[in-house]
């Protein structure tokens, strides 16, 4: 369990994270979404004990990660640009991880090497960006962490490798109850992978929620009414549905409501529409709606 409460991180005068609070349940895959510079990587570095907090606290299993080797032995961070020594090969990096991490598994390492198909003796600096990332993931996963922190991990991976990675991570989550926090600015990449998401913007968490609840709890609908709805009817509609977004074009209305599909359909049907259709939102649409409801322009937030 990761508990983040009123966490603050500053870089000189820049406040990178400004009093954020949320929890990440054990065994979950938490997607951390936000634009470049939102504070995602800062949060991950704080979670793995690289950064010391400037306020508030982060607790993992009830302990602070900063200068806590015992805890950090079960937390591994794979940054967006993994570091390797100039002459390092996958084999030497494996040796390094084996020296440092007590739970490192050679068996798992060999299995992962087989799955990813990397040459263990090739200099990692000579590898492609995607292969370097794969090397980092192999080492990280072979250390069998209880908490895996991934920063823009899908960048540079081809679609096959992305699916493979998702599958391996999902397996480990299922087998070992591993908790994964994955930061990305690509919403579509996280949509079919995460069970929780949090949106970070300008150092604050705009919201965080379970993805299924988020998806099931918000729907878009289109309906045509003849004659068009009057103001009293619209007010009635707003009272019944927690409307996030409403557009009226003549006799047609489009809305996004924070209600399950059945409720939205039932409420619309009570007004006897000529035509109505209710659909779940994609993650991106959910985010757009939520952001707009909160007064943000998502185009400026998610690049």
């Amino acid at each position, binding site marked *: 369990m990761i508990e983040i409460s009123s966490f603050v991180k500053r870089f000189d005068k820049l406040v990178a994270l400004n009093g954020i609070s949320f929890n990440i349940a054990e065994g979950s895959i938490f997607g951390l979404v936000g634009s470049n510079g939102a504070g995602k990587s800062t949060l991950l570095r704080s979670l793995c004990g690289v950064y010391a907090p400037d306020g508030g606290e982060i607790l993992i299993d009830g302990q602070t990660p900063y200068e806590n*080797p015992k805890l950090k032995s079960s937390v591994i961070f794979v940054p967006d640009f*993994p570091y390797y020594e100039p002459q390092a090969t996958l084999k030497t990096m494996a040796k390094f991880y084996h020296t440092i991490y007590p739970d490192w598994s050679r068996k798992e390492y060999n299995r992962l090497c087989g799955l990813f198909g990397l040459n263990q003796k090739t200099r990692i600096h000579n590898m492609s960006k995607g292969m370097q990332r794969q090397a980092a993931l192999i080492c990280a996963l072979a250390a069998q962490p209880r908490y895996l922190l991934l920063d823009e991990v899908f960048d540079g991976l081809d679609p096959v490798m992305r699916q493979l990675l998702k599958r391996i991570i999902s397996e480990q989550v299922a087998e070992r109850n591993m908790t994964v926090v994955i930061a990305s600015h690509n919403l579509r990449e996280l949509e079919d992978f995460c069970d929780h998401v949090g949106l970070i913007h300008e150092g604050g968490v705009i919201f965080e929620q379970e993805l299924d609840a988020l998806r099931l709890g918000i729907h878009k609908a289109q309906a045509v009414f003849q004659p068009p709805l009057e103001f009293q009817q619209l007010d009635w509609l707003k009272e019944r549905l927690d409307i996030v977004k409403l557009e009226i074009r003549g006799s047609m209305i489009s809305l996004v409501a924070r209600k399950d599909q059945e409720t939205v359909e039932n409420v619309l049907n009570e007004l006897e529409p000529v035509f109505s259709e209710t659909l779940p939102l994609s993650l991106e649409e959910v985010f757009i709606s939520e952001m707009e409801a909160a007064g943000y322009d998502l185009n400026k937030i998610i690049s």
Partner: protein
Amino acid sequence: MTSTRSSRKERTQAQFSRVYRWELNSTRMLSLFYTIATLVIMPGTVLMEILSNRAYYSNMANWEGETKEVVQGYFINTIFSSYNRVLSTSMFVLLCAFLFCFAGKSFGYMHTRRSVDLFHALPVKRAPLLMGKYLAGLTALILPQVVATALCQLVCVIYEVGVEPVFFWQRLGLMVLMTVAAFTFAMLFMVISGTLPSAYLSMLSLSLGWPFAVNVADQTMAQFLPGYVSVISGELYTLFCPFGALLQVLGSDYTRYVFFGSEEVDAEQAMASPWFIGWWIVLSVVMLVVALLYYNRRKSESAENFFSFPVIRGLIRGLLAMAVGLEAGLTLGSMLNSNRAFLGGILLGAMTTHIVYQFVLTHSFRGFWKTIPAFGVSMVVLGGFLYGLYTGGLGYVTRLPDLADVERVEFCLPTTAADGSKEGYFSQHTGMSVYDMREDYLFDLDPVFTKESDIAAMEEFHRELVNTRYPGPYLPFEKLDYSNYDSNIRYTMKDGSTQSRNYWFYLMDSDTELLQRLAEVQKLDTIQNCCPFYSMDAQYIADVNMNDYESTYEYNAYNNQLTEEEKQLVWDTFVEELNSTDFFYEPKLMTEEELELIRQRQNEDSSMMDGTSEDTSTRIYYYITVGHIPMEEVSPELKTLLEQKQQQETQLFAGAPSYMTGPDFPIPECCVKTRQLIEELTEPYGQRYDYDEME
């Protein structure tokens, strides 16, 4: 409770052990190159020297008249000379180069965000992480030195070269000490810096900036303070420069120690002073502790930020700004002989240094204005220093010791005599140089006062000099600041401490009070105890000579083949004339007109200020040159003085005095017979030059 502590300690040890092992493993290629190079340089040199010289030194036909032991000593000396040479050249360069490499390899991870992400996310606390890398680096640097030293010893044993083991192992000890100090220094700068270039630049800045600052401060004090005697030692120059101290240790000349062994040289003194060793042990520990404390406080985000602790950057920049400012001030002030130019030079030099350093370090002028207060602070500090000098260096100029505390006074007063008496003559010509058996200069033996009344007379003269000539305030330029007269007064206190002053001053015939004090100092009964004249035997005369020159003409004549009878004749004639009532030693005091001339020509040839060279009465100079006086033949009084002097001299390798050479006795004009005798005994030497004709 105990159990928890123990467990924590074990965990820390385990973390340290993991990092240490990994670091050793990851630097193994670098270590291999370093080890091979060390083995080639150290035992390789010893082996090559033995193989190439063994035949020559073992063939006694090459060493007629020498004993086998002496020749063996020469052989050892040859080997060790080469060994010392490679230590101070190749080994020094190798060690510095690899030390930088190891430091960069071990601690460079702090300076890029990517590597920080890896290392600071590891399940290792900061202290064991840093210490693991630190000790692994030291192991890689020191272990080859130990192995190489052992091999040197082994090679000597195999080839039966009778080497004292202390030679190699003492050097190793110092090399290890300075390696630890230099590596700790490098680690500290890695910790306090945000980037690798800024770490190297800061190390370089302090390593060069500190000795430069010390030197320029010394120059400034000498320029401001009349009587200033530099107290700056080589150890002070390298106080914060372990690389300089390493060179100091490796580059010293140990040959004499090796050749003469511990009978004549204190072994500890020979290698390095206990103060030096103690300082570097303490400083290394302090640097290590500071590095650990800083590293624990170091923010990971400092990587790529140039400096993680800007205070240190400010201190180094301030030190450089002050030093370069002072140097620029001294240069400009000296060129224009102006105090305003001095101050202008300081501001110009300091500001330029501040700007350049800031730009070089940060590659931009961003945030430059924020550094102006720090510049202001360094200027205030410098201003305080200069104000202290302006007001007399906290009483330095006027401070005279309490008479009751003084045990003795040594002095060397102006070559212009106080009067025309014999005392005046002798006091000018008593300086004797003392040498050891290898003809290496040890020290000068100046006249010494030990009687209370004599010490009081000297203090009176000294006080009069300070009060009349140097009342203050003190400025570095726009004064008549040089002369050919080099004078020294050195008080030795009863507790062994000393107070020494050097003066460069001129005497004028109007200085009646000062001349009177000087005359009281120069009494025959006080001078005679330290004058070689009274222990002189005619046999010590090396030669007699005369020279006759002016700016366009030169003639020299001498004779160093005098017979015993001729020597005796010259000496007796000289002593007779010296003791006659007609004896008059021509003092040449400066007149107001000459002083005015000097003022006008202050920036011209300094020889114009020499009263002797302005003497137009005669241009012919006659001398009796005193040769070697063996130690066993000097007077008991002089021997006592020598022993006292020797106790004061704590120079490295100060060998035992073997002989002394007396001064060249100039023959005053009144000694007509002696001069005539010299003319008869000498023959022209070389060519008679007439420069006008040559042109």
